[in-house]
């Protein structure tokens, strides 16, 4: 087995007595001693601090940068103003996912692409492969970049005393550059939890300084360090896709319910023809949210959806929801069954159990 990769915060996690796991080749904290439920609740009601330094960063710069990113992603990049971010994807010609990502517009001719850790090398190769036709440079900044995510309703009040940059005016899915605790960073009002919050990108060797400053400022207000365990339950409650679960190279963007990132009228991009065709034909399956009806029936990732003993779909992600108090999940089911209030069956360890299709997101913050 090869050595796991470590983020700049690895020693900090161990000092906090985190439980560490192999996450896509990275040695990452799945939870701290407070546990997944307490960390989840801290993010929903106060704040949580995540190490997301394992994420990949790719910088595209030059006169052809806009055209390259437009070519590689289905969302309308030209609509982004400088200082704005959007969620999008890299698609294959058949409309399925290379990965999902965030695009930051740093300048007229400069973009920062933030991709999943486990796909980072594949994504960088994908961008490089298509770049020669465009007049731009592509740099993999992942090893040099640290990233932490402060998430939860108290994020702004915890972070503001650490920076001269006014945070209130930064809109959701906008960013700016500034200093936090004396460290230069990109301050982004984004996240993967459904709460208000900030993601801070900085030089790898400055990450621990910012992490410690935020921990110190936030702990008196109830901030907890938060691991990948609650990151998963938080994003599941908000129906945010996770590569390898809701999306992968066998699922296309429309059936994943991500039509809102696909701007078919923006001009050509990789995957457009396949998605145009998919839009014209009725989709055979659809991603839905469900709850199981009995407390003991807890569905898990990748369990089969069945009908009359035959598999008709599959669960992508499922877990007991700490916020909703229900056993929730997301699943691909035949389109004919994908109706609110409709029933499907999920096979849990050989037993077919009833589940009801319910509206998503399961959780939405009130303000």
């Amino acid at each position: 087995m090869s050595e796991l990769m470590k983020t700049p915060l690895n020693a900090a996690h161990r000092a906090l007595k985190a439980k560490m796991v192999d996450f896509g080749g990275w040695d990452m904290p799945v939870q701290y001693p407070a546990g997944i439920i307490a960390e989840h609740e801290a993010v929903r009601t106060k704040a949580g601090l995540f190490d997301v330094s394992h994420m990949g960063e790719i910088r595209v710069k030059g006169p052809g940068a806009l055209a390259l990113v437009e070519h590689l992603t289905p969302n309308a990049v030209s609509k982004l103003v400088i200082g704005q971010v959007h969620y999008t994807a890299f698609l294959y010609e058949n409309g399925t996912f290379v990965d999902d990502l965030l695009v930051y517009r740093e300048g007229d001719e400069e973009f920062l692409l933030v991709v999943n850790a486990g796909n980072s090398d594949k994504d960088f190769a994908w961008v490089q492969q298509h770049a020669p036709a465009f007049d731009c440079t592509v740099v993999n900044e992942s090893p040099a970049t640290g990233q932490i995510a402060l998430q939860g309703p108290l994020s702004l009040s915890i972070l503001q005393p650490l920076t001269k940059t006014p945070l209130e005016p930064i809109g959701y899915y906008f960013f700016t550059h500034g200093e936090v605790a004396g460290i230069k960073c990109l301050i982004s009002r984004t996240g993967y939890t459904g709460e208000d919050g900030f993601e801070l990108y900085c030089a790898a060797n400055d990450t621990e300084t910012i992490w410690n400053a935020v921990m110190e400022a936030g702990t008196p207000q109830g901030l907890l360090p938060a691991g990948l365990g609650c990151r998963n339950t938080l994003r599941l409650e908000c129906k945010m896709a996770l590569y390898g679960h809701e999306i992968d190279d066998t699922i296309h963007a429309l059936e994943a319910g991500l039509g809102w990132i696909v701007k078919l009228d923006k001009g050509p991009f990789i995957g457009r023809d396949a998605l145009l065709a998919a839009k014209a034909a009725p989709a055979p399956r659809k991603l839905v949210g469900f709850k199981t009806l009995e407390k003991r029936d807890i569905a898990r990732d990748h369990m089969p959806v069945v009908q009359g003993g035959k598999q008709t779909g599959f669960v992508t992600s499922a877990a007991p929801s700490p916020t909703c108090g229900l056993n929730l999940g997301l699943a691909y089911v035949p389109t004919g069954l994908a109706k609110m209030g409709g029933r499907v069956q999920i096979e849990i360890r050989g037993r077919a159990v009833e589940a009801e299709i319910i509206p998503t997101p399961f959780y939405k913050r009130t303000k």
Partner: protein
Amino acid sequence: MFPADLKYTKDHEWLKPAADGTALVGITQYAQDALGDVVFVDLPEVGASFAEGAEFGTVESVKTVSELNMPSAGEVLDVNMTLADHPEAVNEDPYGKGWMVKIKLTGNLADLLDAKAYEALVSAESH
């Protein structure tokens, strides 16, 4: 962490034999720590009989599920009903309030580990 009056399985269950031929069964400190926050414990009916090693229930945490296997053959005399409303007792007090079933022992304890042997097993697994 490894009470000396208990017997242990390689799968991280414990069994506490009493003088009257009954025993309590639960999961160990190591097992509850590996599972994380327990949210549901599925336990058998009173009166059910199980062979040594047979699955008698499941324990579900936020992130995963684990089978519960009988440390020794026995008939279920009682189940810990308080776990229905307080599954977190398994995390908080795995050798006490977090007990799962009380059985009438029909098998023997020959295959079980003592505290010292179990501690050695856990220490090998966590390194």
